[in-house]
């Protein structure tokens, strides 16, 4: 009931929430007027922006989100240090290379999120997606543990993402 009402109000309620949140963050001070304005924008802006949406993608459960964000944040911090060492150390210790990561996730939001995460986490940069979206080309700074890295990507990131974006 609530979900259908939301859907009728806005094409994408996470977007509407983000807009309202953005608005309230930006304004100088909290006031009822600003909140009303924010809500108004939260209603109008996504409608306007929806005209640009090129493909529709479903959102499933949001339950894994916090855990996943935490994992990612930790990964980022942890491996940044490792990369720092790699960068500052002699370059001969680096053995980079490309890896094709086969994808199971098909939801485009999910793929986008996965690519972003891969890029943001150190040691890997997602370089390209095949046109059929079945493989992701990833550049790795350390090819010695490529297999393990792929497995980790698939288990740590892709699986929870498939829950969020089925």
């Amino acid at each position: 009931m609530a979900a259908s009402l939301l859907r009728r109000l806005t094409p994408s309620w996470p977007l509407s929430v983000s807009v309202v949140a953005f608005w309230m963050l930006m304004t100088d001070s909290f006031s009822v007027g600003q909140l009303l304005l924010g809500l108004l924008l939260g209603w109008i802006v996504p409608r306007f922006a929806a005209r640009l949406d090129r493909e529709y993608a479903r959102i499933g459960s949001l339950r894994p989100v916090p855990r996943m964000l935490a994992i990612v944040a930790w990964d980022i911090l942890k491996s940044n240090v490792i990369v720092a060492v790699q960068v500052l150390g002699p370059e001969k210790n680096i053995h980079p290379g490309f890896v094709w990561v086969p994808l199971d996730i098909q939801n485009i939001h999910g793929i986008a999120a996965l690519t972003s995460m891969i890029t943001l986490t150190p040691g890997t940069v997602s370089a390209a997606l095949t046109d059929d979206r079945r493989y992701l080309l990833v550049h790795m700074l350390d090819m010695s543990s490529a297999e393990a890295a792929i497995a980790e990507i698939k288990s740590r990131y892709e699986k929870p993402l498939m829950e969020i974006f089925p």
Partner: protein
Amino acid sequence: MIDLIQIALSLLLIVGTTFVLLGAVGMVKLSEFFRRVHAPTKASTLGVGCVLLASVGYHLFLGQDPQPRELLITAFLFITAPISAHLMSKAALALMRDARPVPPEDTEISATVARPRGEERVNRNEERVERGVSGGARSEWWGEE
């Protein structure tokens, strides 16, 4: 209390700045594009994120203008950084003349990865004419004469 906050924020700033610097050093030091791209894309992003957090804290606790607006910047940075990195990698792949990765099977990546030769492509211009790009400024408004 203030001193503690000062110390905490200073630490955050120092860490952030270090990462920013590290990203830049990596970019200068490493020997090839795909190595270099690792450094700034995340080190700098992370570093700026730390600075932003410190800024939020500073304005909240020490400054005259207690607003956590910098969070927005962080959000935007984290959305846009992967777009940049993705595109730069794609461009680098397109310009890579040897040792370009070959797609695993029958699949294909436009404009970046080595593809079989001799394939006949549609003339892009003809295609565009056929497609009859329309809408927007090219609408029938000025279509006369």
